């Protein structure tokens, strides 16, 4: 992995906006041909990172590199990256064909090549029959596809997508997630996708950067981030999580709710205060005597493919459980989980320390 030259690189990049630091010391590397997602709540700085790549903003500190060259001050129109905007930003004075042909025409490509490109891109987004339509005649989903075709017709090295699906309804969004992923894999272009929707991020990405307050909290594959969140914020933001405080007695032994449990994490100080994450789908409701924890069922709601059950343990902690079978409210039940289902998070651990600690004890086994 180390020999692949990154196509985009951030070296200690910070950005100030009117005396406010909106990005703090960002380091990241983007490789050719992968689907990246910048995930975070609004105001976390994810779109700001895009604006530094697209050339809309210049970093206050640090360097942005494209293809190994520093491009801090290079204007947007000179960069080989294109953007699919949240509101599509299609030109209302042009029809579908003219919108898609906009970039290639500016590059003064031969007319035949432009025509071929436009037709290819429109067929890629399945809008071949809409060449001569006006933008106002299209639905939101179709406009979104034109925006994608328009950006791709410029043959960018990297395609930036700034919350492109957020204006679509749920079903269409699902469809477009699938389509975008397919387009990315077919063309082999790097996609950098910005979203606040963790489900979207997990479903589409090869690699996720989780952001908060202008910092990258954690980066990794969707599975890594879901299974091994680095801190409370990431665990809470990605998927549903039961997070409670506990004490790491020694390696592979944690205590919470007044009981001790075997687990698979190590590398902490003895008796260190930690946070414990257990995903709702990893919890099973069993008979009280068979459970590792005893709880009282407090509430439940039907979610279609599962029941979301809330239960309270003897120490007063609330547990969220996903079960295919309903439970009875007020009933005394047990909760069962495996040592692998317990994930331990240290307070204020940096991503570097987190990675090296994981490596140290996973190597031992």
């Amino acid at each position, binding site marked *: 992995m180390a020999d692949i030259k990154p196509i985009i690189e951030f070296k200690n990049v910070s950005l100030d906006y009117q005396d406010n630091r909106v990005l703090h010391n960002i380091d990241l590397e983007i490789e050719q041909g992968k689907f990246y997602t910048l995930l975070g709540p609004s105001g976390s700085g994810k779109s700001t990172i895009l604006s530094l790549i697209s050339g809309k903003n210049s970093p206050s500190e640090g360097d942005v590199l494209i293809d190994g060259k520093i491009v801090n001050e290079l204007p947007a129109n000179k960069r080989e990256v294109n953007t699919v905007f949240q509101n599509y930003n299609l030109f*209302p004075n042009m029809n579908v064909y003219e919108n898609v042909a906009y970039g290639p025409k500016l590059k003064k490509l031969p007319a035949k090549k432009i025509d071929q490109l436009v037709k290819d891109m429109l067929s890629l987004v399945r809008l071949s029959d809409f060449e001569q339509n006006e933008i106002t005649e299209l639905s939101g989903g179709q406009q979104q596809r034109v925006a994608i075709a328009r950006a791709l017709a410029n043959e960018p090295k990297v395609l930036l997508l700034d919350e492109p699906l957020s204006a679509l309804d749920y079903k269409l969004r699902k469809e477009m997630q699938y389509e975008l992923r397919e387009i990315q894999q077919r063309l082999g272009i790097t996609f950098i996708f910005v979203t606040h929707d963790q489900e979207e991020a997990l479903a589409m990405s090869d690699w996720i950067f989780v952001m908060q307050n202008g910092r990258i909290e954690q980066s990794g594959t969707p599975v890594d981030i879901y299974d091994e969140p680095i801190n409370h914020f990431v665990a809470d933001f990605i998927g549903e999580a039961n997070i409670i405080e506990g004490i790491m007695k020694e390696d592979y032994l944690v205590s919470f709710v007044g009981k001790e449990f075997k687990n698979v994490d190590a590398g902490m100080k003895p008796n260190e205060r930690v946070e414990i994450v257990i995903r709702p789908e990893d919890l099973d409701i069993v008979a009280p005597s068979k459970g590792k924890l005893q709880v009282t069922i407090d509430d439940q709601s039907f979610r279609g493919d599962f029941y979301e059950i809330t239960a309270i343990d003897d120490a007063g902690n609330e547990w969220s459980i996903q079960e295919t079978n309903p439970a009875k409210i007020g009933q005394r039940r047990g909760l069962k989980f495996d040592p692998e289902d317990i994930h331990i998070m240290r307070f204020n651990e940096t991503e570097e320390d987190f990675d090296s600690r994981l490596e140290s004890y996973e190597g031992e086994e």
Partner: protein
Amino acid sequence: MKKSSLTYYISYILWLLLFVILPLVLLLLQALTNQQGNFTLDNFLNYLSSGTYLRMTLNSIFYAFLITLITLIISYPMAYFLTQLKNHQFWMLLVILPTWINLLLKAYAFIGLLSQNGTINSTLSFFGIVPYQLLFTNESFLLVSSYIEIPFMILPIYNSLIEIDSNLIQASQDLGANTWQTIKNVIFPLSLNGVRTGIQVVFIPSLSLFMITRLIGGNRVITLGTAIEEHFLTTQNWHMGSTIGVVLVIAMLVTTYFTREGNKKGRKK
């Protein structure tokens, strides 16, 4: 509910009847009758067969065209520049401000500037340059008319430029366009409605300017406006004056037709 909406309409309907329909009908009646009050087409035949009237009409169109062109060339870049400023609403107000001053006063101010002993000539003579005849020339007529019309051209263009979504400009740059290409391909086409309105608002009144033709142009430029004024006030031939008025109304309709919002479907591919 129907009653209350009727009361809203009534003022508009009254205005329409009294100040638009009725004057037009009277104008047409005057134009289609002779001094004896008999119905006749003579006025129109007279207009069409007389070289003087046709020359006047062409003159009017020619000068109105020049005035419109000059104001457009000055106003578009100016409006674009204004939209780029930080407090553009304030600067726009300064452009609008002169329109609040009476036209006649502005014309007299220009006489003070341009006359033989006016500010410009006395400044020139201070440097030993012989006074020029500035007033009562075609150029001074164009200068003053354009000066007066510029705010009316800038305002609609400025409004249409302000309405353009700045994200579209960002998208254009993102796709590789430089500033000039963005102006040409995105900003200008999207501001065309403002340009059309500006042309209508400037060209049509310019066809019938008569105060400036007299005070600044020294009646050397005879436009349809001057002709109407002479017929009504000097020769007292209301019928011929009305005929020229009808011609002006037709000219307005034609101008409006040609500057209407483009039929999107019929646009070139």
